[in-house]
């Protein structure tokens, strides 16, 4: 019997990437909720480099970094595959996975923003990234995101967009504008309604409340 533990935060988009992957493939696991202000000794031992979640522990062996974990899971449990089989399409998928991670830096700036000017600047930066995705990933012959089935690019971007929707509520701003980003907006609307995703989305109100407190603490400490 395989032993899988996931150390994560219920509110973290990075943990969510791994959770969704495990759920999609029907892989049972033990969820270990970490406290970011009081990380377990085990977590620090498993991830001494970054000291952060998520960490997947498979039969006692730790794996770190969300998309590295996702690829690992996809390799060991090939049902409902996330990566394409052809090496060129794999390379494209990996490129966009990296781009999703680059986009997170812009989102982090928004989370940290302590005034209107910083907020505006951060949103502009996010929009630049979303525009690239809108222009490059959709349209004729482009199948970067999953069509009928969820793929690794969906997993990489899904939680990022989920977090943007929470930030829209928490900050009272519009980010995922359907006029600016019609394809992305449409993709997300379909994606969040896929049963396994819908069942495993953190509660919106809980997330908004969390983000507000999280931002206050961040801004107070900076």
């Amino acid at each position, binding site marked *: 019997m395989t032993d899988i533990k996931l150390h994560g935060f219920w509110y973290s988009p990075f943990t969510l990437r791994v959770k969704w992957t495990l759920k999609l493939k029907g892989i049972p696991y033990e969820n270990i909720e970490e406290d970011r202000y009081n990380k377990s000794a085990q977590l620090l031992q498993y991830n001494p*480099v970054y000291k952060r979640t998520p960490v997947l522990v498979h039969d006692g*062996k730790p794996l770190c*970094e969300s998309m590295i974990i996702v690829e690992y899971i996809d*390799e060991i449990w090939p049902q409902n595959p996330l990566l394409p089989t052809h090496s060129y399409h*794999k*390379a494209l998928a*990996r*490129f966009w996975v*990296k781009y999703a991670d680059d986009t997170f830096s812009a989102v982090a700036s928004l989370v940290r923003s302590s005034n209107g000017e910083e907020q505006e600047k951060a949103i502009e930066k996010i929009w630049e990234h979303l525009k690239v995705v809108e222009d*490059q990933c959709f349209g004729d012959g482009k199948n970067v995101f999953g069509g009928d089935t969820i793929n690794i690019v969906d997993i990489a971007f899904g939680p990022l967009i989920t977090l943007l929707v929470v930030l829209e509520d928490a900050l009272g701003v519009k980010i995922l504008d359907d006029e600016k980003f019609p394809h992305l907006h449409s993709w997300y609307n379909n994606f969040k309604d896929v049963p396994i995703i819908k069942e495993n989305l953190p509660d919106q109100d809980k997330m908004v409340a969390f983000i507000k407190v999280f931002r206050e603490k961040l801004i107070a400490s900076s």
Partner: protein
Amino acid sequence: MSMVKVPLVTRMSMQFNKRTNSNPICMVKSSEVKLIGKWSSSYTIRVKIALNMKSLEYENIEETLKHKSDLLLHSNPVYARIPVLIHRDRPISESLVIVEYIDETWPTPPSILPSHPYDRALARFWATYIDDKWFPSMKCIFAFEAEEERKPYFEVLEEVLERMEDAFGKCSKGEPFFGGDTIGFIDIAFGSFLGWLSAVEQKFERKLLIEAKFPALVKWAERFAVDPAVKGLIPEADKLVELSKSIKWRAAIEKK
């Protein structure tokens, strides 16, 4: 310098390729594979090492520092940066993505990624760690004029070396490289920066890769630099130091 044992199979295939320049399994015309890059770029060097490991011919397209070519802008519209591999007219960007692509498209030995998924995950982790820490810190060291401003970034480089020294022990398992008996993904990701490491040491008159502190890494670096797939690719420190004078480091930090 210790002699590195080159396995018999590798030695034979090296001889075969030298003589005939055509491995029947990967007969690739140079027009099929193009690489847009720069001699000074560690990221470009990664791809060249991978291509060499697979004995692939390719057309090298050298980008200049000042002016980005239309081919580059067209091939990498997202980042407009090198390296870009173009295989049968299809572009692939991001050095680590390209290296994995090369390994998968031409699966003949030697393999670049390990065979076991856990080891692959570890290899990707360390390669991403290098990308996360090394070059961003080096850019800051070149960009900032005050010693005090550079200090924290030197500390990051020091920490990276400590971690890689430790990782070497765990990953190599007594063999000459992170990848085992032949160079692998981590070797390529990290080793590609050896030229710039020497450039930093020279320009700032400060030894970083010290034998007393990092005995395994020092020996590994020597072996890596003379590996047939790497030889001639790592630029000399004084050439990079000279080049560093014309790079706009501050602008480089702000780009993402």
